[in-house]
């Protein structure tokens, strides 16, 4: 009985794969892409013969256009952001009471905690950055597309299966439970040792999913490095490369060194779990080995997440300050400095593990040194605004919010980098407050600044200004209420990662939940605004919707936008069908 069931499944699977292959063969004319041995263009077919995009869904499944892929990344990140956000809302609801009265079980809380962290960092953070970089970098550096458009598409399409694997534990699958390892996946818990339930296949699936997203990020990074090195327009010398591209280049370098290491560590962990190796067993490499490997990846990862948002802010903030970025080259060099130094600080996450105090001190030294380049950037942003003609548009508000929150997040970080302080605050809510000021208050804020700033560029339409400002203020207040309460909780000694707590922490926890509720409302407004405005927002009336020309702050992507509008207007005026002309196709985004 069981055998026939399996047989049936196998046959079905085979038939499905055949169907997929047939479908692909039909929609894609594989031969048109690589005229191997055709000996140049004599045959009349060029290498990347994309004359026209197919319509509808198939376009999105087959696209290799960097702008389409950027939008796919954006859509994906948005879905992940919603999922991760709803997860944390359940957690914050739970934390309104000292007992597990709301969710009913600490196990479920732990599952949400794990998934929230991993979803936000790997499925929202990295992809939302990739959305901006894919869409914009080729435009800004004057490249036709990414260096490897197909690898670009593959890198994206690895992400959805990654998400399904990471969330698999929450699906109604028999015998699969969600991982409860926290995002750091510390051994021995994550190795399934002991009497807990973490030997469950749900953890293996999550590790595999993470591995996929890591492969995706690495492919993307290689692509960006190649693109920025080789595809720049002639005028875009190293001296003329914009700050966003610099941060993406640095980020890609970090990914290239950090993610393969995570991949290897994940494989070792999977081997420990399933094939009885002893990499992280007490009798083998020891559980601390995992922490070293994880944080050697993990600390660069936080800068992988923060550098491009810093780039976005350095790019957008001057546009609404009426002047150019102050100390442009300081910002470039400090970006590179952060990139290098971030590989020398990993054990500041392990000060409390009992590693040799004499080595610990070296990590403290480098951790203090890395604060300098971050501070330099902050001063540059402030100086750019100083005496400038500020225009408090929504993207600008989010940029200012970024700077403000980044200062609090950075300062709390410097304190944590000091060993004696860290020994008191480690594993308390202070740490949670610290990094959320950065990941929510800074990274996500910069993402929103970018989304609002380039919304007209991508959609050709305006968002609703009032809703956007409401979104900003709800988030600015919500972020500070939530995460400052957490800083205070940490001072009080509230340990992190618990579903229950002592009654004396109740008030601050409830305040934090209130702030989170503001964040939820702001988020709903944001989604509504973007969705509705995309469909029926008023059309942008000029190629320079932010009126950057008035302050001589125009940049290449808006120049492209202006040219694109012109072509499409000319084409529509003539009453002709809008079709692709020589690689620069006229998007029908605006109509979607």
């Amino acid at each position, binding site marked *: 009985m069981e055998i026939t069931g399996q047989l049936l499944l196998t046959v079905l699977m085979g038939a499905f794969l055949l169907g997929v292959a047939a479908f692909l063969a039909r929609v894609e004319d594989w031969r048109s892409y690589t005229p191997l041995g055709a000996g140049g263009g004599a045959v009349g077919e060029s290498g990347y013969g994309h004359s026209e995009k197919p319509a509808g869904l198939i376009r999105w499944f087959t696209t290799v256009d960097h702008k389409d892929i950027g939008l796919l990344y954006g859509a994906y990140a948005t879905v992940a952001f919603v999922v991760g956000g709803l997860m944390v809302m359940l957690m914050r609801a739970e934390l309104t009471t000292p007992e597990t009265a709301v969710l009913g079980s600490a196990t479920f809380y732990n599952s949400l905690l794990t998934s929230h962290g991993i979803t936000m960092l790997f499925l929202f953070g990295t992809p939302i950055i990739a959305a901006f970089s894919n869409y914009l970098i080729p435009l800004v550096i004057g490249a036709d597309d990414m260096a490897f458009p197909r690898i670009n598409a593959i890198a994206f399409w690895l992400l959805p299966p990654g998400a399904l694997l990471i969330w698999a534990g929450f699906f109604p699958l028999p015998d699969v439970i969600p991982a409860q390892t926290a995002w750091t996946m510390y051994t021995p818990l994550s190795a399934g040792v002991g009497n807990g339930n973490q030997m469950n296949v749900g953890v293996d699936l999550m590790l595999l999913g993470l591995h996929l997203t890591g492969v995706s990020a690495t492919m993307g990074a290689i692509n960006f490095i190649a693109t920025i090195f080789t595809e720049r327009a002639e*005028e875009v010398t190293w*001296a003329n490369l914009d700050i966003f591209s610099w941060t993406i280049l640095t980020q890609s370098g970090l990914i290239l060194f950090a993610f393969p290491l995570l991949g290897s560590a994940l494989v070792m962990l999977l081997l420990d779990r399933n094939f009885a190796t002893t990499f992280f067993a007490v009798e083998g490499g020891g559980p601390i080995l995992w922490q070293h490997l994880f944080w050697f990846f993990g600390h660069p990862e936080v800068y992988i997440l923060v550098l491009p948002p810093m780039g976005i802010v350095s790019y957008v903030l001057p546009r609404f300050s009426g002047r150019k970025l102050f100390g442009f080259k300081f910002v470039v060099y400090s970006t590179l400095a952060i990139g290098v130094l971030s590989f020398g600080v990993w054990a500041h996450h392990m000060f409390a593990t009992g590693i040799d105090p004499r080595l610990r*001190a*070296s990590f403290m030294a480098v951790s203090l040194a890395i604060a*300098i380049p971050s501070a330099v950037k902050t001063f540059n942003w402030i100086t750019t605004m100083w005496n400038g003609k500020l225009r408090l*548009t929504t993207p600008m508000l989010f940029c200012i919010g970024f700077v403000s929150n980044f200062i609090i997040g950075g300062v709390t970080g410097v304190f944590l980098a000091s060993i004696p302080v860290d020994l008191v605050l480690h594993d308390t809510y202070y740490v949670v407050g610290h990094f959320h000021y950065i990941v929510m208050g800074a990274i996500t804020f910069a993402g929103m600044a970018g989304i609002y700033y380039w919304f007209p560029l991508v959609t050709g339409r305006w968002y609703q200004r009032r809703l956007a400002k409401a979104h900003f203020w709800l988030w600015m207040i919500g972020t500070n209420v939530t995460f400052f309460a957490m800083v205070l909780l940490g001072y009080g000694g509230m340990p992190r990662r618990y579903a229950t707590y002592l009654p004396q922490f109740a008030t601050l926890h409830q305040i934090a939940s209130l702030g989170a509720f503001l964040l939820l409302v702001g988020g709903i407004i944001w989604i509504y605004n973007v969705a509705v405005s995309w469909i029926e927002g008023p059309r942008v009336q000029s*190629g320079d919707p932010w009126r950057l020309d008035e*302050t001589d702050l125009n940049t290449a992507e808006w120049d492209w936008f*202006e040219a694109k509008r012109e072509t499409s207007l000319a084409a529509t005026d003539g009453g002709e069908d809008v079709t692709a002309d020589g690689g620069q196709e006229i998007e029908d985004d605006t109509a979607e």
Partner: protein
Amino acid sequence: MAEIFDRDTLLDLTVNVIPLGIILFFVAAFVLIDPFGGLDFYGRVLQMGLLAFPLVALAILTYVSGKAIAGDEKRSKVFFQGQATIEGSPEKHEVEEAIEAEAAGETDVEDPYGGDADEDESEVDPDADDNDDNDDESDVDADDESDESDESDADEDGEVDADEK
């Protein structure tokens, strides 16, 4: 090499010299004071290696990137960020010279963005066509983001462009 690393470039690079200095400070402190003592040779190598590796890597990267950036500055035209591929944008030094001239009280300073940019606009500016196309919406965006500038225009000292390094 000497020409590439001139005074301006060295000044730009100070930003990375400071973290290098902090690391060097700790190297000296650990050598001179040796606050914990008792490290064997292997431990010493680790302790110093953890400082030396970032130190050396940062020094190399700063040198290489400084050479690439300052070298390109010398070899080819320099524009402000994001403007290199825009037709008609002025070079950085033109803008800076104009600002300096203006600051020095010269009156007939030409706006380096002026000439070309305006020409561009007149060819490009599609507002007229726009109104034919979708006149129902044509006045909407005027009161959208664009009127926000009014909120904060109090400061009128017009000090634009001056500060990019």
